[in-house]
């Protein structure tokens, strides 16, 4: 049931790794925002948002307005403050770097798929919010229909965004523990306890 992580060894390593990763991430945020903008440009047409592209301005990832159909005078450009959603990336990297007893290849094997999952999560959040912004706005004007969407956005921003790197790390630890257990079981002959008087 335990994670098998010794806190006295792990916590100082985590603090050190976080102290390295957080300032580094602040420097990498503009680059990551650009990568997110490219991802948005590629995925938005797949979800029915033709003609919209992602771009970067200061700390923001912007999405160009939909093509005007004449019914709306000035369609708005939507903007997301990038790090509001992706501050969890350096935390995941720090968790993997701080885990004791891992080879470099094991760390890379955890970082690559975990990083891709987080990237997909960041993109999904932006797309969902973009598609549901009209509902969120109507909710702020008093309509009850947007409550569920607002609940979902809040759930992501307040809970899921913080938890996702930790859950990914747990999954990695369990996967590693299970692999160890399987290889251990394969090496040992089957274990049975002899009954009867043997003492």
């Amino acid at each position, binding site marked *: 049931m335990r994670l098998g992580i010794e806190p006295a060894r792990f916590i100082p390593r985590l603090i050190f790794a976080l102290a390295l990763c957080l300032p580094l991430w602040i420097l990498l945020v503009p680059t990551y925002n650009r990568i997110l903008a490219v991802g948005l440009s590629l995925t938005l047409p797949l979800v029915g948002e033709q003609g919209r592209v992602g771009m970067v301005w200061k700390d923001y990832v912007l999405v160009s307005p939909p093509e005007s159909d004449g019914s709306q005078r000035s369609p708005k450009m939507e903007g997301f403050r990038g790090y509001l959603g992706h501050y969890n990336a350096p*935390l995941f990297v720090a968790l993997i770097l701080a885990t004791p007893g891992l080879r470099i290849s094991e760390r890379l094997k955890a970082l690559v798929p975990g990083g891709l999952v987080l990237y997909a999560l960041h993109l999904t959040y932006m797309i969902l919010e973009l598609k549901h912004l009209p509902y969120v706005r109507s909710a702020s004007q008093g309509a009850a229909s947007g409550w569920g969407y607002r609940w979902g956005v809040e759930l992501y921003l307040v809970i899921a965004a913080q938890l996702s790197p930790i859950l990914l790390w747990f999954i990695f630890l369990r996967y590693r523990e299970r692999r160890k257990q399987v290889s251990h079981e394969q090496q040992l002959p089957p274990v049975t*306890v002899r009954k009867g008087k043997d003492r």
Partner: protein
Amino acid sequence: MSRKSRKDSRGGPERGAGGGVVPPAGETPPPRRSSVVPAVLIAYLKFGSLLLVLFTLAQTSLAETLVFKPVASGTAKVAAMLLGLFNIEAQTRGAIIQSGGFAALVDTNCTGLFVIFIYLSALLAYPGRAWGKVLGVALGVGALFCLNLIRVATLVVVGFALPDKLNATHYLIWQPVMIVAALCLWLFWTERVADAPGD
């Protein structure tokens, strides 16, 4: 070398009458994987359910009035007192804290309650004795509240001293630090206090 031949070539413990292996006296056979996996799954399900319930309750207007607003006002007041200890003058009005021409609203997300919900859900979902949980709740919630007070106080200082760094400090540094603190407290509790049956 194939798995089979590797198994065959290994030296192993003494074989019993039934062809099985007799563990040395005083040793118990290792727990089978099947008995561990459901316990982990149950813990994760409990954790997710508790967190969703707490989060949904937190979205109600009753929780806003009875819990979040008083906690936000209290946080602002104590953070102002904390700043006073360092000769930094700060005034509060409700949940608004003001210092050196900079004012900030301690809103529901700044109360630290959501991180406390995550910590509580993890603590209550993990198998352990009642006294250990009581101790974990008392010490962990207290520590997280104290850390949140430091967070609010430092953000006010950053707000008037380095306003252009406020967003980065708020989202990129303090958010991961808060969740890491909750994780470390929980890890420490599971390893040193929980005393879970079967550990």
